[in-house]
């Protein structure tokens, strides 16, 4: 960014601006969106840039949508959930199960692994029996 002429770049905010632009392009192509991010900021924090990003892009936290009981944090040394999986409404409705692995599972790291299972709505062909239109 400095090479591009920005004297005092703000990468923390710039990535959200650029990602919003990219997601809008994909949305125009007719894509459902699933975003998996280490946001380094909580989506539940009032006034946070990350929360504003989710709202502006019509994204909702997948685990918040699916689960009642959430881990207080996703990283050792942090007091909030900074790792996030967020998706658009159509994708959220296809989620069958979601959760977080325990710290000792997954790959050894100070972050825990978030995961979910989604129905294969994309590649499931409509059954002939469900068809109501007979031409």
């Amino acid at each position: 960014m400095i090479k591009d002429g920005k004297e005092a770049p703000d990468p923390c905010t710039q990535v959200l601006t650029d990602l919003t632009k990219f997601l809008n392009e994909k949305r125009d192509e007719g894509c459902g969106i699933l975003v998996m991010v280490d946001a380094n900021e909580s989506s539940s924090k009032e006034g946070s840039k990350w929360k504003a990003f989710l709202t502006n892009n019509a994204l909702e936290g997948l685990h918040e949508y699916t689960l009642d009981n959430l881990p207080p944090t996703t990283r050792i040394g942090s007091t909030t959930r900074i790792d996030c999986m967020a998706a658009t409404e159509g994708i959220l409705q296809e989620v069958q199960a979601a959760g977080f692995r325990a710290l000792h599972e997954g790959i050894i790291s100070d972050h825990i692994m978030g995961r979910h299972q989604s129905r294969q709505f994309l590649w499931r062909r409509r059954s002939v029996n469900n068809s109501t239109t007979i031409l």
Partner: protein
Amino acid sequence: MTSTDPRGSKVERVEPSRRLSSQLKQCDTLALAITSLFGHDIWQPVRSGCKCFAFQNVCGIDKGLDPAPEVLEATSIYDISIFGIAEPITVFDDSITHTIDAKIKKQFGRGFISGEGRKSGYNPGGIMQLIRGRATGRHMASGTDKLGRYSWMTLRGSNTKKLCVVTAYRVVQGKGSTPKYRESTTAHW
């Protein structure tokens, strides 16, 4: 509070502030909380008709002649179809990318990674996205941001439906560091 070190000079010992001490205690408590899993019991096997998506900040993957063995092991154990990884802290040159792709094909039959970051030197942060198995057949396009901040894949479905999966890493804004220093320490510029 003061103490005397072996050389005889007095050393000033700074007590941690009460607020910092309280925060550390809270972090310890929260770290204990995540030693158990949360959410649905999603052990293997993945439910019939479902695909498993996962995401983790791994704080660096193994490199060398046998790169990313822990990633492939986790992918296999948890039956993950699409795995987003933040901070692999790896320079994804052609050599390492081809080696990991070959390992995925050998272990799972189909699949590949899209990794991004600097192509030489040291690459802090970065992004890696892995797709394997049958989901690979639905892959339409993939790419990465030129600054290595996010990586994406578009999957094709029936009835013209499409899914775009994006893995991203949002860098922390360093406090007290100059832009030039931050540029030298992060790949996201």
